[in-house]
């Protein structure tokens, strides 16, 4: 069946968007395993599932949108691994004390992992000529969503620690590399 050129343009455009969405869904599918794994040991499985669902949805959206948003996905997920793995490994340890000040080792993992994620994302963002803001927002959100289920071991303080660590890791790198 032959189509007018305008109809063909519209059909090709829909096909293009559908193709991008399909590719994004295939790309994000393995993340379901990560979500299932984190939900299996997270102190708050509902939180892990909510973060995981948001992670998968945003990954699909960023990959579908393309350009800077899509390029932020890998670095964002990779940067989310330290705050996911460190608190997970430290969750059995009780507390670490320096003098009279004690805090949960898991919390240290959240802050440290968050800071490491911040440095990784910040360095990559700072090296970009343009689209720095979009990259930082996209990669940062994915990194925080990846790390959040592990930091939930330490409760709200763990999540706040992750956020603070991330901000603390990103800001100096961005400031140091900002154009004069």
């Amino acid at each position, binding site marked *: *069946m*032959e*189509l007018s*050129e305008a109809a*063909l*343009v519209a*059909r*090709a*455009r829909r*096909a*293009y968007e*559908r*193709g*991008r969405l*399909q*590719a*994004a869904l295939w790309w994000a599918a393995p993340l379901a395993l990560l979500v299932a794994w984190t939900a299996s040991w997270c102190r708050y499985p509902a939180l892990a599932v909510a973060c995981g669902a948001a992670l998968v949805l945003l990954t699909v959206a960023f990959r*579908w*949108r*393309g*350009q800077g*948003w*899509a390029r932020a996905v890998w670095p964002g997920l990779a940067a989310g691994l330290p705050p996911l793995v460190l608190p997970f490994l430290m969750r059995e340890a009780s507390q670490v004390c320096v003098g009279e000040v004690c805090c949960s080792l898991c919390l240290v993992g959240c802050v440290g992992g968050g800071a490491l994620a911040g440095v990784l994302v910040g360095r990559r963002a700072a090296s970009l000529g343009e689209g720095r803001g979009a990259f930082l927002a996209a990669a940062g959100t994915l990194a925080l969503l990846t790390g959040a289920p592990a930091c939930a071991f330490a409760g709200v303080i763990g999540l706040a620690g992750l956020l603070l660590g991330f901000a603390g890791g990103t800001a100096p790198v961005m400031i140091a590399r900002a154009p004069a």
Partner: protein
Amino acid sequence: MDAARYRELQELLARLADGDRAAFPPAFTLLWPVTRAFARSYLRDDAAAEDAAQQALVRVFLRAAEFDASRPALPWVLGVVANECRTLRRRTQRRREGPLEQAEGRPDPGPSPEEGATRRDLERAALDALGGLPSADVEAILAHIGGMERPDLPPATFRKRLERALKRLRQAWRERHGTL
């Protein structure tokens, strides 16, 4: 398609694969005549070619997100179009087949399943070998077989370029398949 347009197509498909929607209208404008011309030369039937070209163009855009920008764009596009033409031809042949009683005793004029599979494998292998060549070589070979416009060159220069391109194609084929 001349060399400048060939480069433009490469760049536009790379941008589409990256998610740059602004590349869609010029890519459509560039791809539609190429797709239509190739389908016509492949099917030798204007109405069927128009149908196949439309289907193929939609498929090219559906798969645009998968395009690897390090590979030449034109052989990739033509591979998709050739595939669509083959599918359409097979479908048309099947539709033309009459009832079994009438067919009895008549030899099938089309290729046997084995011949068809061999031809498909050869086409795929040829497109693969073509895809590894420099763009000028691909352009010369396609112009020679009528898949694109002949570059604006003196006949002797074009002949030399074609000879070189065919030599490199033979070499690429030998490297991949060991025989020629």
